[in-house]
């Protein structure tokens, strides 16, 4: 266990705890705020794993845009401040399926990777090394994604305008 491993494990524990709070809390606004903690901890993990550009994109888009959008939706649907009793169904079947999925994924990774050690690459995820391939070999998916974003925007406007 090196210092990097300890940092990864500690920040991962923060992310898992915040994720548990997102799933388990009975106050809608607090779920959104715990989501901020979880996504921020994941951004820190990305930074530790040398993915700088992705980490800051995560901070900008997830923490800056998606969470704000979710909190706006919470306000627009007049969610009550304070605990609401009817947010959840019974926990039994969902936790059986969820724990099963998580355990099988974890087992898969344990079998595939075990406790092998890798040296982290240097300068692997800055804007230059990521942006170069995006604008050369990945330029077609990049353009397709931009069209998809535009159509999603138009679709959101059409849906929220309502049927006439």
């Amino acid at each position, binding site marked *: 266990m090196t210092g990097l491993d300890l940092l*990864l494990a500690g920040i991962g524990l923060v992310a898992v705890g915040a*994720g548990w709070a997102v799933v388990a809390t009975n106050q809608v606004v607090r779920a959104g705020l715990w989501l901020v903690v979880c996504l921020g901890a994941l951004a820190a993990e990305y930074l530790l794993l040398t993915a700088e550009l992705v980490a800051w994109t995560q901070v900008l888009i997830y923490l800056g845009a998606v969470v704000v959008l*979710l909190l706006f939706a919470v306000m627009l649907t007049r*969610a009550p401040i304070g605990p609401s009793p009817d947010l959840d169904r019974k926990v039994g079947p969902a936790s059986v399926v969820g724990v099963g999925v998580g355990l099988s994924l974890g087992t898969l990774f*344990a079998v595939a990777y075990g406790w092998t050690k890798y040296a982290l690459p240097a300068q692997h995820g800055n804007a230059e090394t990521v942006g170069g*391939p995006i604008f050369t070999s990945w330029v077609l998916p990049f353009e397709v994604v931009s069209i998809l974003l535009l159509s999603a925007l138009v679709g959101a406007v059409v*849906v929220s305008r*309502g049927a006439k």
Partner: protein
Amino acid sequence: MHPFIPYAVASVLFGLGVIGVLRRRNAILLLMSVELLLNAVNLIFITADATLPKTAPTGQIFVLFVIVLAAAEIGVGLAVVLQLFRLKARINVDEVPLDEHQPEATHDV
């Protein structure tokens, strides 16, 4: 760097997201759980990419695409949820009537 540590974190987050998607009735909380699922997958991509130092950072490029798709998904999803709230004044997903027959739109002559 032992890649099993972030992989284990991602597995637990994915399991939590599945629990949230299956358990939550409030549509906005359900979308938050979907975000947990997407972020778990992103963490797997980033970790796998960090174990391949010789190649181009394809995993990170995939994560950027997933983030964009998540932004599009959350925009459209929240538009649908707000429209549901406007129609029914409730956003519990198990109260959405799936078999309700809407009358045909009448066309003005």
